[in-house]
C-alpha cells in the first residue's frame, strides 16, 4: 500500500484524496516514514509530525509538501541553513505557505539548502551537505538541494524551492526532477528570506510538469504584501501559435557551449535531434550580451545580498554576542556566525557598492542586465523558447570543487539568464549519463508561464525520460 502511495504523483494523490480512496493522514505518514528512513540524504533540516489541515474543501487538500528552509513558516523554525538563524521561529507565514495551507496542504518539513541560497551544489549548509540519491557521494545541486532531493528520493510528492540564479533548476537537473522558476513577480516573495531580491522567485520542484503546474496554480498571484507581485496576464495573441503536438521553435545558444562537458553535450544534442525529428524547429542564435551575463549576475546578487543580510546583527534574533561589550563589537561578533561563502558574497557586495566602485561594478552590471533583457525580448519575437542544458556538467563529487569556487560559479551560466531577465524557466530531465541525470532548460517569455509549462509538458512527453534513483 505505502509503496503505492509514493509512486503516485501530486495530481494523482489529490484526485484519490478527493475521491476518498486515500486518507490525508495515511499519505503524510507514508512520506514521514520515508523521511526518517533516508536521513542519510540530509534533505531535511526540520521534519514535522502530522498536523491535520482543517481546510477539507481546499483544492489540494491532504497533499503533503516539503518547504525550503528560507521560506517563512509560522511557528516552525526557519534557518536558511545558517547558524545565524539556527533557532529563528518566524511569527508569520510566507504568502506562498499561507496559500498552500489554505488549499489544504500539510507541511512535511523544512528542507536543507545552501546557506541563504548562496551556492549551486547544496554543500554550503551549516547542517551539512545534502546528498544526491543517484549517487550519495555526489552533490545534488543547489541551493534548493533538500527540496530536489526530497522529490527525487520520493520523500515528498513535490516541494517549494527558491531560485535566485538557478537554485531550483540546478538541483532539479542534478536529481532528475522538474524544477520551475516562474516569471519575476508571479509568486509573492513575502516571507521568502531575501538573498538577492530583484532576482529571486519562489517556485516548485516536482516529478512532472503537470504536478508543477498544479502547485504553481495554488501559490501564484498578486499579493498586497509584495509590491513587485503581479497577476498573470492572459496569454498574448501568440496563443494560436501554440500547437498541441509540437511545431514550435526553440533558439539554441552556441556561444556558451565551451562550458558544456562532453557527457552533457551528447545528452543535450541527442535531445535536440529527437525533438527536431518530432517537428520542433531549432536554430542557433548568437547573443553577444550573454558573454557578460554571469558576471553581471554575481555583481547584482552580491550587492543586493550585502544589504539584505545586513539585518543579521544579533539585536532582534539570532545568536546574541556578549551584551556587556559595546554594540559595534557585539554586532561584529554576531556576524562571524555566517558561513564562508556568505561572508565572501557580503564582502564582495560591500566593496562593489562603495563609492568609487559603484559605477564600475554595480551600475555597469545593471546596464548589462538591461541590454540582455532587451536582446532576449527581441529574440522572443522569433522563438517560442530558448533551449539549453540546465547545468553544463554532471553532478560532481562532494568536496571535489571546494577549492575552486569560480568553477562552481561557471556552472550557473545557463540558469542566471532567466533571473536577470525575469523570464520563466523550467528544467526537465532529458537523459541519464553515467547513471546520472541530465536536465534541459526551457526559457519562455516573461509573463507567459502557462504557455511555457504547456511546452515543457509536450517536450517531456516527446523525450519520454523515465528513471528513479535506487536508494
Amino acid at each position, binding site marked *: 500500500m505505502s509503496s503505492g502511495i509514493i509512486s503516485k504523483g501530486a495530481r494523482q494523490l489529490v484526485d484519490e484524496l478527493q475521491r476518498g480512496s486515500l486518507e490525508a493522514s495515511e499519505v503524510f505518514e507514508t512520506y514521514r516514514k520515508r523521511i526518517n528512513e533516508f536521513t542519510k540524504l540530509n534533505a531535511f533540516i526540520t521534519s514535522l509530525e502530522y498536523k491535520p489541515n482543517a481546510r477539507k474543501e481546499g483544492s489540494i487538500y491532504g497533499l503533503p509538501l516539503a518547504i525550503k528552509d528560507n521560506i517563512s513558516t509560522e511557528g516552525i523554525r526557519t534557518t536558511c541553513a545558517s547558524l545565524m538563524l539556527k533557532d*529563528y521561529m518566524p*511569527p*508569520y507565514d510566507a504568502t506562498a505557505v499561507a496559500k498552500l495551507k489554505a488549499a489544504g496542504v500539510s507541511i512535511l518539513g523544512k528542507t536543507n539548502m545552501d546557506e541563504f541560497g548562496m551556492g549551486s551544489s547544496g554543500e554550503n549548509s551549516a547542517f551539512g551537505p545534502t546528498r544526491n540519491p543517484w549517487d550519495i557521494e555526489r552533490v545534488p545541486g543547489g541551493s534548493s538541494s533538500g527540496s530536489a532531493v526530497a522529490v527525487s528520493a520520493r520523500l515528498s510528492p513535490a516541494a517549494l524551492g527558491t531560485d535566485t540564479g538557478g537554485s531550483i533548476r540546478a538541483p532539479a537537473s542534478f536529481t532528475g526532477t522538474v524544477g520551475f522558476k516562474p516569471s519575476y513577480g508571479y509568486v509573492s516573495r513575502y*516571507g521568502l528570506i531575501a538573498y538577492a531580491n530583484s532576482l529571486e522567485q519562489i517556485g516548485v520542484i516536482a516529478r512532472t510538469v503537470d504536478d508543477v503546474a498544479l502547485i504553481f496554480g495554488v501559490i501564484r498571484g498578486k499579493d498586497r504584501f509584495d*509590491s513587485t507581485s503581479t497577476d498573470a496576464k492572459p496569454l498574448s495573441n501568440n496563443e494560436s501559435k501554440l500547437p498541441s503536438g509540437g511545431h514550435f521553435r526553440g533558439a539554441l545558444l552556441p556561444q556558451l557551449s565551451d562550458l558544456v562537458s562532453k557527457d552533457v553535450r551528447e545528452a543535450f544534442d541527442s535531445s535536440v535531434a529527437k525533438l527536431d525529428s518530432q517537428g520542433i524547429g531549432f536554430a542557433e542564435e548568437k547573443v553577444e550580451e550573454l558573454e557578460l551575463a554571469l558576471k553581471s549576475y554575481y555583481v547584482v546578487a552580491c550587492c543586493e545580498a550585502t544589504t539584505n543580510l545586513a539585518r543579521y546583527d544579533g539585536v532582534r534574533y539570532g545568536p546574541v554576542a556578549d*551584551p556587556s561589550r559595546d554594540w*559595534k563589537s557585539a554586532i561584529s561578533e554576531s556576524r562571524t556566525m555566517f558561513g564562508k561563502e556568505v561572508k565572501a558574497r557580503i564582502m564582495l557586495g560591500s566593496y562593489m*557598492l562603495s563609492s568609487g566602485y559603484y559605477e564600475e561594478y554595480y551600475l555597469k552590471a545593471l546596464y548589462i542586465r538591461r541590454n540582455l533583457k532587451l536582446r532576449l525580448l527581441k529574440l522572443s519575437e522569433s522563438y517560442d523558447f530558448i533551449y539549453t542544458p540546465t547545468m553544463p556538467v554532471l553532478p560532481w563529487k562532494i568536496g571535489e570543487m571546494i577549492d575552486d569556487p569560480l568553477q562552481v560559479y561557471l556552472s550557473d551560466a545557463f540558469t542566471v539568464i532567466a533571473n536577470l531577465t525575469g523570464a520563466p524557466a523550467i528544467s526537465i530531465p532529458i537523459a541519464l549519463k553515467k547513471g546520472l541525470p541530465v536536465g534541459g532548460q526551457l526559457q519562455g517569455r516573461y509573463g507567459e508561464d502557462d504557455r511555457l509549462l504547456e511546452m515543457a509538458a509536450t517536450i517531456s512527453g516527446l523525450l519520454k525520460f523515465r528513471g528513479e534513483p535506487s536508494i
Partner: protein
Amino acid sequence: MVSLKSKLFCTCPTDYRGKPPNTNICPICTGLPGALPVLNVKAVEEGLKIAVALHAEPSSASYFFRKSYFYPDLPKNFQITQYDKAGGVPLAHDGYYTLKKGKTIRIERIHMEEDPGRIYYEGGRGESRFSLVDYNRSGIALVEIVTSPDFTEPGEAREFLELLQKNLDEIGINVSEYEGSVRCDANISYAGGERVEVKNISGATEVEKALRYESVRQRNMATRGVKIRRETRSWDERRRITISSRSKEVEAEYRYMPEEDLPPVSLNQAIIKNIALNMRGSFEDRYRICTKYGVGEEAAKRLAGDPALYTLFMSIVGASGMDASRVGNVLANEFAFVVKKHNNPSLSGDISSLETIIRAYISDGDRSRFISATYSWISGIPVRAEEYKPKVDIDALIDKTLEKEIKNIGNLEGKRRLDYLMGQILKVSSQLNRKELYIKLQKKLEELG
C-alpha cells in the same frame, strides 16, 4: 508624519507615544527576515501637499533607495529613503519659502524616508549597563526638507521653522500637536571655515540657540587661528552646548542602491493637481482656516466661498512670511474686485508674481498701481518683479528722521546738517532717489527755518 494613520511601509499605527516599548511593531517595521515594505500611498499624498505648499516641483516619478549603515536602532541596518547621493529623484525639488521681511529661502529638495527606532539608556547614557532599543517609532514616515544655505543669521533659521510649522499645521499635517514632530539638522560655516553639521535639534527655539552657540564657538576658533574642520556635532539641549560626535570625520560610506522591493511610484500631474485641490476642504474648513489666520469675518467668507481665490490665498500665505490677515483682505477685496470686473478669468498665473504685487501694495498702499498690475497678472502678461519694489513714502521718512535726530542736528549748520540727514535716511532706505530726497529735505529744512 503624525497626520498619517499608519507607518510608511506597514500598517502599524503612528500614535506610538506612551505605548509600552516594542508593542507598536510588526514583521515589516522590525525588519524580520522575509518581510517586505509596502508603500503607504497616503504618505506620498501628504508629502506632495508639503511640496505644493513650498512651491516645489514634484518629480514625475518617485524612487526609493537603501542607505546602508549599522546602528542598533535601524532594524534592517539600512534605511529606505528617497534620497540617493548618486543623484536620484526626490519627491519634489526647487521650491522656495519667503520670510517675513521678504527674504527668500530656497528649498533644494523634499524627500521621504523611514524613521529608525529609539535607543534607550536606563538612567542615562553614561550610567546605563545596557543599550535598549524600542522599535515603536521605527518606520514612521519622515519628510525631510532641505534648504539651500540661505540663512545669514540664527534668528532666520528659527523664523523659518516657526513659519513652516504653522503652515504645515494649516494644511493639516499637524506638526505642533506632538513633541518631537519637527526635528532639524543645521549646517553652519563661519568666515570661510569648513561646514559643521549640528544634529539632534528639537525645534525652532533650539535651532537658534544651537546656531548662536556654534557661531560663537567657531568665531573664537577663527580668532585664535584654529582651523575649523568639517565635522558632525550634536546639540545638548540641557547643557546648551554642541558636542563633537566623532573624533575624526570620515566621509560616511552609505552604499546607496535602489530599493527593488518598491517599484517606482508615478506622480502624474493629475494626481498632483488633485492634491492641491483637496487641500481646500469644505466651506467650513476654509472659513475656519481663514479666520484662524486673522482674516476678518466678511473677507473670510468671501475667500472660503470661492475655491480659486482660497487656493491663491493658501499658496501665498503658505510660502511667504506675509501678514496673512492683510493678504486675505487684499485678495477678498481689491483683488476680487479686479477679477470680477474682468469676467472672472481663470486664476492660473504664477504665484510668486502675484505675491510680489501684493507685497508691494501692502507696504506702500499704491492702489492704482496694484489694480493695473493685477489686471496684467490675470491677463497673463508677465510681471517684472523689479517694477514692484514697494514705494517708500519719502515725506513720512523725512518727518520720522527729523523727529529722531532733532537733538543731533542742533549744532550743525546748512549743508552739513543736510548731508548728515541725507546719510541717516539713506542708511535706512538706500534705494531712494537721491535727487528727489535732497530737494524734499532741503524744502523741509527751509520750512523749519
